[in-house]
């Protein structure tokens, strides 16, 4: 199966205001949000990108939707490089790639009615007005908001979080995209509502044959949505494997710590100390070689000298670690 989205050595730096000393030395400190990311998302796949704050997962999502440009490396979509997309071809891309937001309360313009919010992509894409009502209706049906007149004339502040997130999804689906990125789609929703939205994400993906990338810090949630998970740390992918493997047989020391740290609803769960030391280092000055080495319980001299590459160990399982 051909890959729908390909990333090759994608790098994204954010320049940082320099102190006088740094200007004097000619130094250009930057936050390396993404530091050489390479992977493919196959057509029809559901891939999760997990990691803690600062790992670059949100930046990755934005780059994949061309909301920002990479500083280095290349991203292709449907075989065509994203770098040169302008004009009509860019509009075409925008029709095919959509985003589900983290904060449903902020993802809709508070001054627009719900109908107006969902019809907007159709207006932007130049779809004939006669089709608007039907397409909006079918989008609403897909997200199980069937009684339209309860919603069309309302404003966002009149809806609950769960309903809003469904509206956000309706808006994302109204143009019939091929590719969906969901950035923490349920983290701001109440617990009893999350399950419904997650089920909806799963269902929609199946019925529409979408390729999906889910960005989340919550490994437990991601398990319900994706067959494959990428674990990121400080701008690099450290492990890329089927989700079940990540959860049951993690190979990278960071993944092991991450999995051990997730609490479960079992009062008898393990409370053993986590196999990790210290805190996340300053993103402007990550450690040389393997960026995880100052927190890794198994660090060796080689880890400081040489950055481990993402290599396949078993079928479909890639790890970036010298231990492997």
């Amino acid at each position, binding site marked *: 199966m051909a890959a729908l989205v390909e990333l090759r050595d994608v790098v994204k730096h954010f320049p940082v205001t320099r102190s006088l000393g740094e200007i004097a030395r000619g130094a250009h400190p930057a936050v390396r949000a993404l530091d050489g990311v390479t992977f493919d998302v196959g057509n029809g796949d559901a891939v999760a990108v997990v990691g*803690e*704050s600062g790992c670059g997962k949100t930046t990755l999502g934005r780059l994949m939707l061309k909301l920002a440009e990479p500083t280095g490396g290349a991203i292709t979509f449907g075989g065509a490089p994203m770098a040169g997309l302008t004009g009509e071809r860019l509009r075409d891309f925008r029709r095919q790639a959509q985003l589900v937001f983290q904060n449903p309360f902020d993802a809709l313009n508070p001054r627009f009615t719900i109908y107006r919010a969902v019809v907007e992509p159709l207006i932007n894409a130049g779809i004939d007005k006669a089709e608007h009502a039907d397409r909006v209706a079918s989008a609403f049906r897909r997200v199980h908001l069937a009684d339209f007149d309860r919603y069309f004339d309302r404003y966002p502040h009149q809806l*609950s979080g*769960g309903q809003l997130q469904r509206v956000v999804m309706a808006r994302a689906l109204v143009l019939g995209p091929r590719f969906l990125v969901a950035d923490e789609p349920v983290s701001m929703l*109440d*617990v*009893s*509502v*999350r*399950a*419904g939205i*997650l*089920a909806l994400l799963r269902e929609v993906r199946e019925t529409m044959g979408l390729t999906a990338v889910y960005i989340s*810090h*919550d*490994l*437990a*949630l991601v*398990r*319900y949505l994706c067959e494959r998970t990428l674990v990121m740390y400080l701008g690099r992918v450290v492990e890329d494997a089927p989700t079940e493997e990540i*959860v049951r047989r993690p190979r990278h020391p960071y993944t092991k*710590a*991450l*999995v051990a*740290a*997730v*609490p*479960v*609803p*079992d*009062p*008898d*769960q393990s*409370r053993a*100390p*986590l196999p*990790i030391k210290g*805190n*996340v280092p300053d993103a402007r000055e990550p450690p040389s070689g393997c960026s995880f080495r100052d927190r890794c319980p198994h660090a060796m001299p080689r880890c400081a000298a040489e950055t481990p590459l993402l290599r396949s160990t078993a079928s479909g399982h890639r790890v970036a670690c010298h231990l492997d």
Partner: protein
Amino acid sequence: MILEVDKLQIHYSTRDGTARAVDGASFTVPEGRIVGLVGESGCGKTTAVRAIMGVLAENGRQAGGRVVFKGQAMDEATTRKLRWRDIAYVPQSAMSSLDPVYTVGAQLVEVMTKRGNHSRASARARSVELFDLVGLNERRLADYPHQFSGGMRQRAAIAMALALEPSLLLADEPVTALDVIVQRQILDVLRSLQQRLHLSMVLVTHDISVVAYLCDEVVVMYAGQVVESGPVRDVLARPRHPYTMGLRNAFPDLLSDALELVPIAGSPPDLREPLSGCRFVPRCPFAQPICGIDAAMSGNGDHRSACRRDSEADTLRTAALDPRTWQRSSSFAMS
């Protein structure tokens, strides 16, 4: 019992009427134990804790019930005296409530000299102790809050709360905004505080996994009332209230084999409306006419439930494990 909350009622006066944010909630905190106060947004858990601390918003007031701390009923006057000294509070935004223009050490010293009767020297010595208790390096006392990471700021906020040696710590969502590894570290800090200082705690959270990890007892709240309470093991393994059963289904378990998350349809009631009977009825798959009456909590021993059908708890629990139960509301609920 270090803390007893008895039929507490907190009302907020809003433009659209009086919201009964807490409507007859009762629970207790045994000495030296960590009690988890769990529920979703709007259930009243934060309000209850703020009422205990006496830091309600301007439009909130205690309309009924009482709070008893160390055997003494608390009113306005006593709350003020006890606040920060014997009862400490780490609010939800504690991380961002550190003053950015003073070093963390200076803020600790100030709390101890102004509100306690420490001298500057003894306050400084105690600051070192406090940082050690929360797992922070004492050299960081000279740093400013912006030089701390999120997790470190939370530890500093906890250190400040402990400055005057309280017997009870109230923590409102202390780990919600933190990454999972840092979250685990903070939870471990709280546990060690319980062990080293025999500190009693009330932990407000929406996450039952956090409760399962840290707490000894759990109090489940819904729509301003306590629906279930008891030892964590009992409540999570054998829930007796349908809401707890539903909540349990809605939480993903990283380690379990089940791959089904079941939502609870509907949403919590509007607390400005006068409500009677069980508040969960519109969303409960087991609702029956008997649920329309007001009733007290029932149950044997420590594990109590507000469900009117408590005697059938075992049967209901088995049914609750089946996702199909939650897809249709009971006929009573629809009426």
